[in-house]
């Protein structure tokens, strides 16, 4: 094998593995969501396909493939077709900078457990998720339907508003750690759980809460799912979509959830670190597996929280949503930044 080819192949393999892991998580997540929502509402949920209904996502997937694909007659065809791709690709790209562990050694090669280890890594995630809004806006506009258009408009206004609070809440962590590189941010949180940025490592509890609320709005999940509020907009921006194209929007939404959870874990909760120094510095295959397992567990907790919140809280009204974003979260994020700046200036963190 030529020398120059190996890193490219390793990267391709990493991308393949992570993308597939994300897709598989989406499948499992839909099952969890349906079962958990059923428990919350005193129902049973899908429990017929496979043990405890575990094969239900598989059946759903087959259904999506078999369904007829419809494109409205008056739709802008090109934009209509490209919109779900934009949504899915940007959702997948954002995950590339999140480290799921330090390193793993496979067949004599040391492989970093992150796809893209850039100096401005966090900005890549923000940039990718800010491009994701184009998928929704394009879908809403190209469908040539008033419900879809309203959904697309709402999505663009909402995502721009909450991006501010989201970005500002991250700045707190950045000024504490002094770097934008996610791998370094995690490495700086090594030690006991008290060293995590949310606790004594950075006193970012407020920042974390702002990040989570803004994250729910960014991913268009309840209680902020205005772009697809069923009772008002049928299904919002994806009203006119069917079969695999609808399923791509669906996957994009769930992958965005995973990415936001991953970012929350990486920035505030020590990423892949267990909080037990002996386990974190173990190294070797086992150490890498422990790191990956820790990361998955932490992210899993937030994903279940996403589902839990969705099925317990009612939807906001649109003006309330904007009020919360601009008049509450934004000033709070500024306050958090000010306090953090003072803490950093006086060398407390």
């Amino acid at each position, binding site marked *: 094998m030529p020398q120059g080819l190996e890193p490219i192949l390793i990267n391709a393999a990493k991308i393949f593995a992570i993308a597939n892991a994300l897709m598989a998580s989406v499948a499992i997540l839909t099952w969890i969501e349906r079962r958990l929502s059923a428990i919350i509402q005193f129902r049973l949920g899908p429990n017929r396909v496979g043990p405890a209904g575990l094969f239900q996502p598989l059946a759903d997937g087959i259904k999506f493939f078999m369904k007829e694909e419809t494109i409205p007659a008056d739709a802008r065809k090109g934009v209509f077709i490209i919109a779900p791709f934009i949504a899915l690709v940007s959702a997948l790209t954002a995950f590339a900078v999140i480290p799921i562990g330090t390193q793993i050694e496979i067949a004599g090669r040391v492989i970093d457990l992150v796809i893209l280890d850039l100096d401005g890594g966090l900005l890549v995630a923000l940039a990718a998720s800010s491009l994701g809004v*184009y998928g929704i806006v394009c879908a809403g506009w190209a469908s040539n339907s008033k419900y879809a258009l309203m959904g697309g408009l709402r999505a663009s206004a909402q995502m721009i508003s909450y991006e501010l609070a989201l970005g500002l809440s991250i700045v707190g962590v950045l000024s504490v750690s002094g770097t934008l590189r996610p791998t370094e941010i995690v490495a700086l949180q090594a030690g006991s759980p008290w060293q995590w940025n949310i606790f004594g490592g950075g006193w970012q509890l407020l920042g974390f809460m702002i990040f989570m609320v803004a994250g729910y709005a960014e991913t268009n999940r309840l209680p902020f799912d205005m772009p697809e509020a069923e009772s008002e907009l049928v299904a919002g921006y994806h009203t006119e979509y069917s079969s695999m194209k609808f399923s791509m929007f669906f996957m994009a939404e769930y992958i965005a959830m995973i990415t936001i959870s991953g970012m929350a874990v990486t920035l505030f909760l020590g990423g892949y670190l267990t909080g037990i120094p002996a386990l974190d510095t173990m190294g070797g295959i086992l150490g890498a597996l422990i790191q990956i397992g820790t990361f998955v567990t932490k992210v899993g907790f937030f994903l279940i929280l996403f589902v839990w919140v969705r099925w317990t809280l009612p939807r906001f009204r649109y003006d309330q949503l904007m009020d919360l974003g601009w008049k509450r979260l934004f000033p709070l994020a500024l306050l958090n930044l000010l306090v953090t700046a003072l803490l950093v200036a006086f060398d407390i963190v």
Partner: protein
Amino acid sequence: MEQIAFIVLSGLALISALVVVFHRNQVISALALAGNLVAIAGFYMLLNAQFLALLQVIVYAGAIMVLVLFVIMLLNVAEEARSHDSSPIQRYLSPILAIVFVVALGAALFGSGSAEPFAPASDSFGTVDQVGISLFTTFFYAFEVISLLLVVAMVGSVLLAKRRL
């Protein structure tokens, strides 16, 4: 690798720029402009200016263009704009000005006299650190004045939009 990326990005940038100018539908034009901005960000990336590239995507493609799209969709300016004919002065003056601009740009590019290639950028060039340091040391006053200018623009736009506060 870099050559391939450059060719692909150039193609994207050129095609999207042409679509922006020639497409009759404003929404498509705006989308093409967003694509163009992302392609330009790709050029920055190739030139080692990571931070600039990412900011270009976040600020211009991710926020400003979305707002532009938002306004176009909300106000539905399509019919209004089509019926509006530009004045004859504009029609004849604009191509002349465009040619003058291209000539001036070309003169600046080829007549600048520095035939020797630039020194290669250092490894830390274009990182967040470097940009931050030069913004807050070398260009400190310019940076502060620009931020003041932005505040003025913001206050002005709020005043214009809301006559009675």
